[in-house]
């Protein structure tokens, strides 16, 4: 089967964040970007399904030039081709605008299945996958923890995470969009051979007009949400922070747990 995977590049979870001059996003200079965590699991799931069915994976990403590094990595892991939605008009989109562009790009590929991560670790809309499904008119599921494709390729058995440690299992018709939850598989590492092969694989660049979209339909202009400002949240002063070298701080903490909190 032919599977599309959408990946996003997000700041590394260890990155030190500074707010940009316009106060509306972070200053991206000196920030290391990585493939969004759940997107990595989506890519692994797609590569496995493609291997089992002698199919192929086409990987999509929307973003500035730096996302080519993420696409190159996906190619090294085994994706056959990559599509980079590359244009300044795409920037600043919410999930409705980004999903519209990705759906248009995917529609040209005749895929059997689309996998995305469940939520980006930066904007965190948690909805790009389901919105892509909406534009394509396909079923979708969010927080997918298992995918079992029917041998005919017409249906899939899906395990979806619910709250309180439960999973729900259901069937849906393909093609569909499944937003993958982190943790359902073990993402592979790129081999040297894969890295070498990736250098010869195609990364196609597409703009809004290639997709038949006007600049008003994508990015910040095509979005239903406008960011007014971002800020570090207020940190509560309620916690007693115990200062000092580790050994001294630990000793003081234990004393407080015994005498003040009375839990030891």
């Amino acid at each position, binding site marked *: 089967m032919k599977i599309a995977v959408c990946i996003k590049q997000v700041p590394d979870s260890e990155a030190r964040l500074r707010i940009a001059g316009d106060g509306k996003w972070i200053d991206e200079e000196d920030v290391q970007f990585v493939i969004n965590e759940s997107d990595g699991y989506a890519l692994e799931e797609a590569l496995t399904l493609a291997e089992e069915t002698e199919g192929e994976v086409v990987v999509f990403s929307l973003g500035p030039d730096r996302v080519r590094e993420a696409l190159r990595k996906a190619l090294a892991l085994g994706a056959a081709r990559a599509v980079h939605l590359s244009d300044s008009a795409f920037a600043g989109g919410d999930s409705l605008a980004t999903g519209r562009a990705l759906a248009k790009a995917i529609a040209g590929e005749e895929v059997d299945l689309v996998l995305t991560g469940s939520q980006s670790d930066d904007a965190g809309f948690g909805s790009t996958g389901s919105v892509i499904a909406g534009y394509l008119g396909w079923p979708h599921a969010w927080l997918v923890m298992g995918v079992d494709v029917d041998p005919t390729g017409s249906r899939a058995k899906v395990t979806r995470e619910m709250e309180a440690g439960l999973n729900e299992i259901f069937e849906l018709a393909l093609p569909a969009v499944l937003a993958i939850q982190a943790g359902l598989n073990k993402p592979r590492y790129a081999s040297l051979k894969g890295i070498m092969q990736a250098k010869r694989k195609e990364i196609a660049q597409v703009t809004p007009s290639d997709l038949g979209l006007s600049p008003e339909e994508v990015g910040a202009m095509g979005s239903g949400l406008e960011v007014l400002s971002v800020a570090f949240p207020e940190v509560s002063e309620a*916690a007693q922070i115990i200062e000092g070298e580790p050994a001294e701080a630990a000793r003081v903490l*234990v004393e407080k747990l015994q005498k003040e909190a009375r839990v030891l």
Partner: protein
Amino acid sequence: MSNTVWIVLQQRDGQLHKMSWEAIRAGQKLASLIGGRPEAVLLGSGVQDAAQQVSECDLDAVWVADDAKLADYSPGTYIGVLQVAASQASPGYLVFPHTYQTVDYAPRLAQELKGALVPEATAVELDGGVVVWRRPILSGKLEARVQAKGDGPVVVSVQSAAFPADEVEKGSAPIQPLAVDMSAITADRKILGVEEAAADQVDLSQSEYIVAVGRGIGDADKLGAVQELASALGAELGASRPVIDSGWLPRERQIGSSGQTVSPKLYVATGISGAIQHLVGMKGSQVIVAINKDRGAPIFNVAHYGIVGDLHEVVPALTEAIKEAKEG
């Protein structure tokens, strides 16, 4: 766009999800800000008792779609009913609790209604006559102030614990059937069953002492020091989601919205930044100690005691201090 606020509730087997009450509070607050009125909407099968409970809130109506086709949740049926109903009544806002179920379908409803989507709102205010929402970004490290654009309805999901259920204003609301032709509504999923996510269950909810470990541990081979701290305390070992997803500890030790909810006497969080999904599972602990290198980490907002430092140094020191105190 009208200033009617719809609050779309969540229930399972006729029992309201506890965050439904928080959504009611959020909807009431929003309605009072914009000079509108809140109405509740409840979908399901056999939900009359739940509707009765909700009718004791200060709302203009409780709209109910009670149909066998809505016994199981599916995006197809829920979006189908709400799209038809909202197109007829055209509420200006649809407020949802931000749950694993609503995030599955509310975005696509916003899309179908040609509206805007505000996921995971934690606060709402009026700023110069404009409704401004706050929502966490970058895993809660930053907070964004956002505003919806366009003429369509605004679909909002409100984060857990942001709008307290005990502030819901009481009143009396008429229960009315939602006029939707159910014959045109079809499910897009065939439900096969429900299973436990973890193979073996370890019940952490009864533990008096829990030492939990997060992404800050860095690698599985560093877990030994945290295990020693747990042994010294006589504590069970728990973890936040990234540690479980990386396969460093089994899923039955996961604490948080998709794992277990715990309330021990003492909870020691090591290398856990405190994403909301983790906090909802442990903030009821009697005493919380946080060890993290980042003073700005949200875990310090719920902690009673904190040490800001490298957990690889602080955890062994704490183990030693506990052993000494117990021997002394």
